[in-house]
């Protein structure tokens, strides 16, 4: 019996082997045939007529329209809603739904003239009543969001009242002068939706109805959102008829989807890693779009502990960091080294030289530590693998100045707890800039009473900064304010509340079948994207 099975099995095995080899040979032949005909196909492709109505498919790592309970319903990069004030290419405030504005002499009152002839996607007319309805909604309390919390106190601090002057003028009154209020209102700070779009709790009662060049026609949460050109848009119409934005959380899958032609481009934060972007560059069918990011990455030390509170050791640490190497080695050059605490996307940002001087760093550290070596922990977010690579690069530099660090990856919430308790030596953090007004960053990190100063145990206490920020509060002239902010930035580079490493770069990949894939500060100019003709 067994012999019979053995003979039979041998026959079956040989048959299978034959079928397999024939299949493989067949595949190979097919490939060869394909290779031979590839030139012809390429020629055919070039003369194919592009169907301009075909849906463009893009993808990001998260779903860009979280829905009714999200403070904004969807990301600004979908161009579904528009703000009163939009952001220019250099971070400056530009007219959007508010076409003009005026500040009172004392800086406490702002009057905004609203654009006429604008309609929401649900047909409602955009006017002062619509804007007031949006302020009423914001007054109901903080609305969490996948992007930035919708918080009236954050975007309109000290707002005393908001009122309609007439159908196309509104007035905001503040308890003290707000000369830079426009910067706070950029994009997320003044998103406007149809007044019929909210329920009693201030949540959306359906798909978001904005005034943007695209309207949402289908939103499958965590899967995709389908956009269609809004034909009654007040400005220049979007070039693409419809765009589908998929959610593909895994970056490798996103990359493969792009290469396989399933999607035509990536967008949103971290849409491609620098390594994958470099890989994509090797393929002529794809291109990379880059823009400044609002994110800054930095190190903090426990300034409430000796010897980290010694300015000489702080300077030594800063000088020991080779920021350019971090950007080049870990991020393939996608980043901009900086020593400034302020992100480079705001027009108030000032460039300072980034100095690396290991010999000087050693001398300064020796003055503080003497011959002793300092042992401490370097906390990193374990969910971000690049932070470990970064830390492994930084650790030997610190060792050279006498600081031996143990790298400790951990969950972000645990890391925050450790920072608050002051149970650390070094930690790696990052900070986004929600609008172009820089004072929030200065106040939170550099004021003695600043919440980040306390919660990150920075131990930063410079009287000059406190005084400068107090005078900024009273300053009405934007030019004078800029001078104050310059001084504070300069102080941040010499007194080290934190150790900025680099400003991020947004990286997006796209197929050469698309044109005008122009990266912006956050996202891309979606209305300009179209099929290559």
């Amino acid at each position, binding site marked *: 019996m*067994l012999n019979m*099975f*053995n003979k039979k*099995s*041998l026959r*079956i*095995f040989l048959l299978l082997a034959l079928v397999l080899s024939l299949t493989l040979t067949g595949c190979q032949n097919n490939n060869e045939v394909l290779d031979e005909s590839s030139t012809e196909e390429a020629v055919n492709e070039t003369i194919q007529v592009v169907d301009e109505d075909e849906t463009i498919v893009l993808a990001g790592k998260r779903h860009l329209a*979280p*829905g*009714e*309970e*999200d403070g904004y319903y969807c990301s600004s990069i979908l161009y579904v809603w528009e703000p009163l004030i939009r952001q220019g290419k250099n971070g400056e405030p530009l007219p959007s739904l508010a076409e003009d504005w005026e500040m009172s002499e004392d800086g406490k009152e702002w009057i905004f003239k609203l654009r006429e002839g604008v309609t929401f996607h649900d047909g409602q007319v955009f006017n002062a009543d619509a804007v007031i309805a949006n302020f009423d909604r914001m007054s109901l*309390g*903080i*609305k*969490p969001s*996948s*992007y*930035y*919390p919708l*918080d009236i*106190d*954050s975007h309109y601090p000290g707002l005393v009242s908001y009122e309609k002057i007439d159908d196309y003028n509104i007035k905001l009154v503040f308890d003290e002068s707000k000369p830079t209020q426009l910067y706070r209102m950029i994009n997320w700070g003044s998103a406007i939706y149809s007044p019929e779009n909210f329920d009693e709790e201030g*949540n959306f009662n359906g798909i978001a109805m904005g005034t943007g060049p695209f309207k949402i026609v289908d939103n499958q*949460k*965590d*899967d*995709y959102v389908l956009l269609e050109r809004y034909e009654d848009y007040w400005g220049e119409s979007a070039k693409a008829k419809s765009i589908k934005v*998929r*959610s*593909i*959380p*895994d970056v*490798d*899958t996103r990359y*493969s*989807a792009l*290469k*396989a*032609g*399933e999607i035509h481009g990536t967008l949103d*934060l971290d849409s491609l890693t620098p390594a994958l972007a470099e890989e994509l560059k090797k393929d002529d069918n794809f291109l990379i779009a880059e823009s400044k990011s609002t*994110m800054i990455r930095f190190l903090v030390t426990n300034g409430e502990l000796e010897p980290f509170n010694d300015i000489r050791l702080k300077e030594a640490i800063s000088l020991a960091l080779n920021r350019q190497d971090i950007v080049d080695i870990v991020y393939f050059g996608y980043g901009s080294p900086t020593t400034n605490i302020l992100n480079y996307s705001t027009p108030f940002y000032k460039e300072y030289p980034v100095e690396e001087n290991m010999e000087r760093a050693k001398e300064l550290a020796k003055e503080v530590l003497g011959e002793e070596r300092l042992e401490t922990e370097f906390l990193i*977010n374990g*969910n971000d693998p690049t932070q470990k690579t970064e830390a492994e690069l930084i650790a030997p530099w610190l060792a050279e100045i006498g600081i031996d660090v143990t790298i400790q990856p951990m*969950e*972000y*919430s*645990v890391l*925050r*707890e450790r920072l608050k308790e002051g149970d650390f030596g070094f930690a790696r*953090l*990052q*900070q*986004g800039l*929600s609008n172009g007004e820089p004072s929030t960053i200065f106040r*939170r990190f550099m004021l003695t009473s600043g*919440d*980040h100063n306390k*919660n990150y145990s920075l131990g930063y206490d410079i009287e000059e900064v406190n005084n400068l920020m107090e005078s900024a509060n009273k300053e009405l002239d934007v030019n004078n304010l800029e001078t104050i902010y310059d001084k504070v930035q300069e102080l941040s580079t010499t007194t080290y509340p934190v150790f900025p490493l680099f400003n991020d770069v947004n990286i997006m990949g796209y197929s050469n079948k698309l044109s005008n894939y122009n990266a912006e500060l956050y996202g891309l100019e979606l209305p300009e994207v179209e099929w290559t003709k």
Partner: protein
Amino acid sequence: MKKYIIERMKSLFIVLVGITIITFLLGLITPGDPAELSLSRGGNYSPTSEQIEQRREEMGLNKPVYIQYLDWIKGVLKGDFGESYSSNESVSEMIRRKLPITVKLALYSIGITSFLGISLGIISAIYKDTLIDGSINLMNNIMLSLPNFWLALLFILFFSEILGWLPTSGNGGWKHMLMPAFSLSLVTIATTARVMRSSMIQEFGKQYYLALKSKGISKFNLYIRNILPNSILPILTLLANFMGSILGGSAVIETIFALPGIGSYAIESIYLKDFPYLQAYVLITGFVFVLVTTLIDIVSIIIDPKIRIGADSYEN
């Protein structure tokens, strides 16, 4: 039999209550403030102390712990799992949207595992100690040693990027399910094949097998109609456990293939301390796991008279 089922249902209830308490307590003892995390989105935004305090109040986190637990339990009994700390969305709605996708993935995986695992096991047993058996064993060893996330990426590379046969990701028809289901199934195909093989080989040593074979009945009747029913029981238990492990462990595969099932958000909910979602997830997967195991026990009793005798002792 009835009493046995009632006893199992009682233990099911106790297990579920235990799961809810443990999940709730684990949420409390782990560090991190859900209110802050719900606003900070993993560190991309830093909320102010005032914003955090207002959010804590809205989320009910300032209430005593036992009140929070009782409030939650009351809601669960009415089918309301509360609102996600992260998105404010109704957790019941999230589960309603996500669960069918994970169940679909689980069914595809179970189908593939059952078909291939049992078939390979039967072939391997019939052709015991032959080249075929050896090849299947080698294949099983390879499948057992490959991590599913790595396989998933390889599948995407070959079948989507290079060959263009299957979509890389997304929720859609059967083509979208093939790679995720295979990635999840390979290890269990190997395990099922091994258990099936040894279970059948055990039957070969029994008197009834020799008697049937000597009668000269057809191979199909011998192996499929007589041996298979006697050797399938361990496989049923294995598949039931597999069903549970898919529901509870498909997070990585769902993330890689962009399938918005219940697992894909589970990992993120741990980082974000989105306890309402996490508790619902654990409760539902726990419930399904215990329920499926109980059902399999009952099916086993029906199939195998020997187990029925054990279950009947509950009647005495």
